[in-house]
């Protein structure tokens, strides 16, 4: 992810004059999921430099936020990095969402125009930390140089205060706005500008509210669903509810007779077994309003072929998982020491299985997209997490030159991984090509729950050997699951495990004999990334099992886990979130959560505390959950969380993401599952897929941050995985009931 560091500096900083005599500064850095420029990045075409930092003559500062904002707070935290080093007053900074920028060099290679764009894997902060600060520092240095030239003094005698360059000796001061035009004409510095020491930060590390807060509370903030273009029409699609099913016949006479209905467009389904473009075959109704389109849809008379998975059901998949685990060994993913031998010689061994279901993303804003396809280009406006993927998809479907495809990212009404894919962009494009007008495609909730890239469910079988000192000597973990790499381009069958198991997760290197096995299950369900992907299932299994082991040897679960983690050590970590896993930092968050929750203090009968911690994508998070079970009914009273994400750029949002992980983790663990019966998804709306409500939310939620001094890592995902096991461990502490399957609602009543 760090290619930018190897590019010549001149190539990734661009400088230009703003219209009206200001300063513009653009930078580049790579982003997740985009083509990496092979070797060189050409200079941007003359005059097309888009702003990244803009300083107007009146001193107004605009900072472009390149990444899609879906609630993770990057539209605030990324500009904070620039503002810090630029040395401006945050209250005077305006933040603008940047559209996608790409360019083509003389050899025809595509690359980013200003900066890699796209969000996923909790990478935005980590990959932006250095380059965005350098961008800010470069702008500041240019402004300072401009002042030095103006005053004919040495640059070393100048300093800045927010928004101005000052000359202490001469008692002189010039606002950035007065210097911007001159600064824009200076050559870029060749050496990286010096950056502030953390002790000098005025903005980074201070809690800042969401930059769009006022727009959001007044209804002015623009989401994909709010996009408008002149002359637009509205479309909805009736999709085949059976996985990979096909359209047999459609009678659209009644639909076409509905007032306002303009056209009917058939959408061909995905090719069997191939990577998805769209998720299902469908019949689109295009109309003058969303409601007219919806009425037309209801009047369609369709016969579907039920396709190749019409017999698949969740119960059957579960049975197949059990059979697979019972029948044979799986694909060996990791084998260290001699597991068989260790089990044979162990004084005790424990085995348990854990199950998680498929779940859906259910972004509160259902999928939607506005697309206009013209002879000479296209415009795409929507809740887009991966703008380049959207651009590639439109290019693939229309043949239009990618430079003529404009992609605008609105705010996203939630992401959680759903919008890493662009199937809804493809659908809107296919319809827009037919009707030759801007088309606003709108999904409803049923569409969204029936057609998702679901997080795979799976069955994990864990076995551990214990010696007479109560130490874990061997560990075998076998996972049967349908990999999320299903129908991904270029993933071989024997690489499917890579999306579901992270071999460097603990207890690797903490237990001498260790084996991981994978059983790739077949399923027709579309699968994809869901907030912290497989970490949720793995943390649930591993952190529950460690709790079980602790109880087996009559040890305190916290002490047992700390003993397992041992002295603080750094281990190599080759999966996403590496290159290092630090046992000390995981122990640190466990200790902090425990201390703040008063771990070990007595609790009333029927109440209990559980603890769990996990390392996810560079961040360490632990929770203590307190529950009460009265008359068999569960109430979650309190959650105390600790997070070590390195330096917290905006502690306010880091805490917000922890709260989000707590509520999402709880909501998902309590009631959520997607099930399949006869090849179709059974959940239709929030009654059958009941997201947690405020009434479920614990009244006491406390979040604490560890100031570890490490460079910042992303916070969108680490706060979710440890919540579920902390919760089930608490239920065990309160009642002695060990729940090894999610959602909990099957096993315990909720108060």
């Amino acid at each position, binding site marked *: 992810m760090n290619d930018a560091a190897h590019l010549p500096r001149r190539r990734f900083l661009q400088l230009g004059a703003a219209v009206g005599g200001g300063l513009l500064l653009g930078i580049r850095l790579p982003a997740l999921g985009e083509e990496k420029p092979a070797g060189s990045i050409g200079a941007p075409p003359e005059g097309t430099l888009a702003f990244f930092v803009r300083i107007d003559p009146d001193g107004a500062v605009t900072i472009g936020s390149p990444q899609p904002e879906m609630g993770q707070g990057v539209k605030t935290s990324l500009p904070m990095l620039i503002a810090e080093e630029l040395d401006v007053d945050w209250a005077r900074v305006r933040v603008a969402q940047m559209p996608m920028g790409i360019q083509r060099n003389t050899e025809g290679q595509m690359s980013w125009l200003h900066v890699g764009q796209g969000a996923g894997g909790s990478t935005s902060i980590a990959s932006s930390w250095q380059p965005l600060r350098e961008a800010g520092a470069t702008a500041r240095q240019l402004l300072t140089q401009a002042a030095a030239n103006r005053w004919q003094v040495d640059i070393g005698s100048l300093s800045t205060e927010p928004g101005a360059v000052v000359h202490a000796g001469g008692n002189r001061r010039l606002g950035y706005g007065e210097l911007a035009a001159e600064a824009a004409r200076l050559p870029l510095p060749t050496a990286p500008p010096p950056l502030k020491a953390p002790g000098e930060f005025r903005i980074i590390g201070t809690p800042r509210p969401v930059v769009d807060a006022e727009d*959001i*509370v*007044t*209804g002015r903030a623009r989401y994909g669903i709010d996009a408008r273009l002149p002359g637009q029409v509205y479309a909805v699609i009736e999709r085949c509810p059976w996985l990979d099913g096909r359209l047999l016949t459609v009678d659209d006479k009644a639909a076409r007779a509905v007032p306002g209905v303009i056209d009917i467009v058939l959408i061909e389904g995905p090719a069997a077994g191939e990577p998805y473009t769209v998720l299902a075959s469908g019949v689109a109704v295009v109309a003058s309003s*969303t409601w007219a389109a919806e009425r037309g849809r209801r009047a369609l008379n369709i016969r579907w072929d039920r396709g190749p998975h019409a017999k698949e059901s969740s119960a059957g998949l579960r049975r197949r998982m059990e059979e697979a685990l019972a029948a044979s060994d799986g694909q060996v993913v990791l084998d260290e020491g001699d597991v068989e031998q260790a089990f044979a010689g162990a004084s005790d061994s424990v085995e348990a299985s854990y199950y998680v279901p498929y779940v859906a993303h259910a972004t509160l804003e259902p999928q939607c997209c506005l697309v206009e396809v013209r002879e000479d280009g296209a415009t795409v406006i929507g809740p887009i997490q991966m703008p380049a993927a959207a651009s590639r998809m439109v290019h693939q479907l229309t043949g239009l030159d990618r430079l003529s495809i404009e992609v605008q990212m609105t705010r996203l009404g*939630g992401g959680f991984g759903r919008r890493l894919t662009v199937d809804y962009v493809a659908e809107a494009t296919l319809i827009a090509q037919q009707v030759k007008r801007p088309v606003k495609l709108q999904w409803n909730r049923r569409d969204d729950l029936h057609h998702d890239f679901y997080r795979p469910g799976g069955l994990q079988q864990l076995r551990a050997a214990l010696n007479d000192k109560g130490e874990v000597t061997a560990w075998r973990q076998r996972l049967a699951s349908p990999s999320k790499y299903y129908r991904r381009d270029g993933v071989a069958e024997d690489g499917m495990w890579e999306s579901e198991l992270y071999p460097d997760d603990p207890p690797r290197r903490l237990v001498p004999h260790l084996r991981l096995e994978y059983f790739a299950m077949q399923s027709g369900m579309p699968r994809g990334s869901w907030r912290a992907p497989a970490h949720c299932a793995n943390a649930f299994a591993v952190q529950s099992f460690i709790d079980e082991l602790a109880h087996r040897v009559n040890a305190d679960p916290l002490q047992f886990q700390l003993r397992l983690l041992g002295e603080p050590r750094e281990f190599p970590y080759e999966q996403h979130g590496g290159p290092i896993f630090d046992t000390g930092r995981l122990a640190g968050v466990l200790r902090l959560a425990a201390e703040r929750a008063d771990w070990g203090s007595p609790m009333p009968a029927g109440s209990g505390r559980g603890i769990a911690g996990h390392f996810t994508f560079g961040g360490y998070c632990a929770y203590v959950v307190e529950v009460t079970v009265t008359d068999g009914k569960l109430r979650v009273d309190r959650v105390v969380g600790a997070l070590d994400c390195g330096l917290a750029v905006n502690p306010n949002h880091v805490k917000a993401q922890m709260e989000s992980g707590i509520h*999402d983790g709880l909501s998902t663990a309590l009631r959520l599952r997607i099930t399949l019966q006869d090849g179709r998804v059974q959940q239709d709306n929030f009654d059958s897929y009941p997201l947690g409500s405020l009434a479920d939310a614990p009244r006491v939620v406390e979040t604490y941050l560890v100031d570890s001094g490490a460079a910042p890592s992303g916070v969108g995902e680490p706060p979710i995985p440890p919540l579920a096991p902390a919760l089930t461990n608490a239920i065990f502490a309160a009642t002695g009931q060990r729940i090894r399957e999610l959602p909990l609602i099957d096993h315990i009543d909720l108060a």
Partner: protein
Amino acid sequence: MIQFSVNGEAVAHTGDPEEPLLWVLRDSLGLTGTKFGCGAGLCGACTVHVDGAARRACVTPVKTVEGQAVTTIEGLGAQGLHPVQQAWIAEDVAQCGYCQAGQIMAAVDLLRQVPNPSDADIERLQTNLCRCGTYTRVRKAIFRAAAAQGRTPATEGES
């Protein structure tokens, strides 16, 4: 023709009388602050006020608001931010923000019914769903707004 008012202005709807108020607001009137989340009265993203009471616009056929006064999020703060909106900013509630217009409209109605709500009141009445899990701050913002509304108008603007 169905006549009613939206944010104080008279409007007339000539289309399908069964059309949900939500789509009339969004598609015909261009008031996009009111959001669509489920279309079934389950999530509250579409919450508006009809004659001052919270109503889920996705399950409100437009014919049922004939002669009534509809207020949307755009109208709530038209004379300066409402104390509930101010509380939402002060507690920095929003994550993706998509549910928040509905949350705010619901909270205004909650405080109309129960000016000094308890935790249990909030749990019973604030039933809007938030996929991002902002509930801890929604709760705090409601308490903050309740406190602000209980004060004299002179101190109301403080946040």
